[in-house]
Structure formats: structure tokens, C-alpha cells
């Protein structure tokens, strides 16, 4: 079984602020209204009380997040959306993911909780002015602000070593 943990900073996320400024003022993508950044942990395990065990790891260690600086949301990201806005959720991860075997081992040694695997990604939630066609808008976002294809386009994912994938907002967001 896999549990999703979306972690974001408690204070102002300066990475998201800079991403917003660069997209709107340098890449001229004026339809962007808001951008949020999360660290997405996909925790695979064979534990019957998976969510409780993850909560135990969060409360007893700093291995997954620092509760003084970060907040975790289980399974879905809470995002507020106005009626004239649309949301696009992008996952960015490395083509050759870093091994988390050492982290899994440390968690087991410290807490006795045995996860099978942990996968980490960065998730960007892009809130934009709603367009006519969602597909066209997604393609436009990919070409203009997401994928670094040239020195003038894209900042969120460098295709030479990163993958960028759209996620279904209905599956991963709690829209308000």
C-alpha cells in the first residue's frame, strides 16, 4: 500500500515566490495567479495501520519533515480556487531517482517502523486564469513556463535530468 504525504513550508515559500516572479515578469506568463510548492513523499509499506505509523515517524523524528518549519497533508493538498481559476498540478522528479534505502533504514532503526520504499518528488500547484480548453492551457504551460527547452523558456523542469508529469487535481487536491 502507498500513502501520499504532501509537505509544504509553514512560512512564506521563497522558492515559490521566485518561481512566480520569474514566470510572470521574466517569462511573461501573465495568466498565472498563484503557485504553491510541495514536497511529495510516496511511502510504500505493508503496514495495516499505515497512516498511524507515518504519524508516529513524523512525531518522533525529523527524517521526513521538520515540524518547526513544515506542515504535512495526508493524501491531498488543500488548495483554494476562485470560480474563474483553474489548477494544474505538476510533479517533477529525477529521471534516475536517488536511493532512499538509507532513509528507510534509519527510520526502522529509530522508530521500528518498516517502510518498503519512499519516493520523493517536487509538486508545483499552478493556479491560473481559467482558459477555454484545459488541454491547450496545459500544453501552453509546459512550453512556456515548465520545460527548459531553450534559454528563453521553462524553469520548473530541466528535461536533461528531470521528468515533469501532470497530476490529476481531483485525485491529489482538496479544492476549496
Amino acid at each position, binding site marked *: 500500500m502507498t500513502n501520499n504525504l504532501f509537505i509544504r513550508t509553514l512560512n512564506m515559500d521563497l522558492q515559490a515566490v521566485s518561481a512566480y516572479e520569474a514566470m510572470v515578469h521574466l*517569462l511573461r506568463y501573465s495568466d498565472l495567479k498563484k503557485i504553491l510548492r510541495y514536497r511529495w513523499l510516496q511511502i510504500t509499506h505493508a503496514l495495516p495501520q499505515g497512516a498511524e505509523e507515518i504519524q508516529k515517524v513524523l512525531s518522533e523524528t525529523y527524517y521526513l519533515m521538520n515540524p518547526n518549519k513544515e506542515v504535512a497533508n495526508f493524501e491531498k493538498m488543500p488548495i483554494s480556487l476562485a470560480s474563474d481559476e483553474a489548477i494544474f498540478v505538476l510533479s517533477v522528479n529525477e529521471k534516475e531517482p536517488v536511493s532512499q534505502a538509507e532513509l528507510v533504514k534509519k527510520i526502522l532503526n529509530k522508530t521500528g517502523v518498516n517502510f518498503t520504499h519512499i519516493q520523493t518528488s517536487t509538486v508545483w500547484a499552478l493556479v491560473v486564469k481559467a482558459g477555454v480548453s484545459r488541454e491547450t492551457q496545459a500544453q501552453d504551460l509546459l512550453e512556456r513556463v515548465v520545460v527548459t527547452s*531553450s*534559454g528563453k523558456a521553462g524553469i520548473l523542469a530541466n528535461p*536533461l*535530468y528531470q521528468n515533469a508529469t501532470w497530476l490529476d487535481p481531483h485525485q491529489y487536491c482538496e479544492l476549496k
Partner: protein
Amino acid sequence: MQKPKIAVIQFPGSNCEYETLRAVSDYGAEAGLLRWNVPEKEFHRFGGYILPGGFSYQDRIRAGVIASRLPITGFLHQANQEGKPILGICNGCQILAETGLVPNRKADLKIEVALAPNEKQKNRLGFICDWTYVKIEKPNKSLFFSEFENGEVLPIPINHGEGRFVVSAEMAQEWPDLTALRFCDQTGLENEANTPNGSTYFLAGIANVDGNVLALMPHPERAAWIRQMPSWLTDQWAKKKKQDFSAQTDSVGPWARLFQSMVKAAAKV
């Protein structure tokens, strides 16, 4: 004779601009510091440009990516078309890679190299601060290496968290004819063990195909004078340092020639 003018570009978060200014001015240039938001007319007064090391925009999103989208990179494109020398050191190297100015094989500014986080065998290595050796390959293809020999091995410090060169599949298949710096040991042996950050093809630096742009992750400005060399090195440079110490002199370091070559090139523009 008037000295050639070379600018060191200061981005928000640069932190090696002053020692870079010192290196390039000590080796023959009239060096000036330019801010990232300098007016275009002021920018083009210079005959060469250096993007120094540091953490522009705190390395937010990826090292160098935000700085690479600033209007000043448009001015750099123009300077490149005019054949002016452009040197990117460490964070400057990351910025140049994100602009497509290196290797710029087809003069289309396509992104063909990236600087990924340091990593070996799927394990993150974090920030590395150390002395390494690099070997210079095809120095005759770049105006920055007019004073160097092919295959020359030199000590140089590195200081980065995102310095692992990754190259596009197209470039890997059809390797361009350009100057490259590759990590090696003191004898010039290139292999994975001698590549501290896991870089593809042991790359430490790469020039553009026209030879007027150079992006390198190590810091030549920190090996431009003999006094900067660590005493624990066992090569000729360390011996020279001991001699200098006894004689109370200060000789030029292994990378002084890079700045001297750049100054010569800027004088011709």
C-alpha cells in the same frame, strides 16, 4: 596602452565577484563590477564578461535558472554574437548552461548541458568543497586556453552542490569539436573515482563551439596565485609555494594564464 575592459557581473547572491575582479585586474584588465540590472548601453562598454561563483537567487528552483532568464542574458547573447569572451565560473557556469550559450553546437541556444545535484551511484553527495585536478582537452579550440598545452593537468578547487554535468543524448552521440576540462588525478588519469561530483564523461567544464564562451564548475580565481595553493598538495605547485614562502615572493598560480588569455582576447575585440 589602454587596458581591455572586462566586467564581472554581480547577481543577487553572487559571492566570488571581488576575488574574480582582483584576478582579472591583476592579470592585465581594467575590471569593473556590473549589476544584473545594468542598462544595456553600459553593459556593452566592456570587451569581455565574467559570471562569478555564488548562489544567484539562493539557487531557488535550480541553481542558475532564474538568473538565466534575466534581461541581462539577452545582452550576453549579443556579446556572444560579437565574439566577446564570456567566462562562467561555478554559479556562472550553471547560468551559462541554462542560457544555452554552451555548447551552442548549432547556434540555436538549445539546452544541451545541465548541472544536476552531485550524485554517485544514486546517492546524493551534497555540497563538495575540495581540491581536484583537471585535464585540458583541445585547448586550441578556445580563446581562454591560448597559453595552455593539450593534456595539461592542473590543480583547482571546487565548491558546489549542483555541479554534475549531464549532456543531451544528441550531444553524447555526436560529440562536438570543442575544449573540455575533465576531472582526473595528479597523473591525468580520468575515471569515476577521480570525478568528485559524479559528472558525466568526467566533465568539469566545457566551452562553446566557437571558443569564446567557457563554463567551468571549478574556481580558477582561487588558484590564480601560488599563495592560494594548499601546502598538502604534492605537485610542482606546492613545491613552488614552499620556495615562494622561503624567498618571500608571490608567483603566478596555475590558472593565471586563463585570465591572461581572456584579457588578450578582450583586447582584440
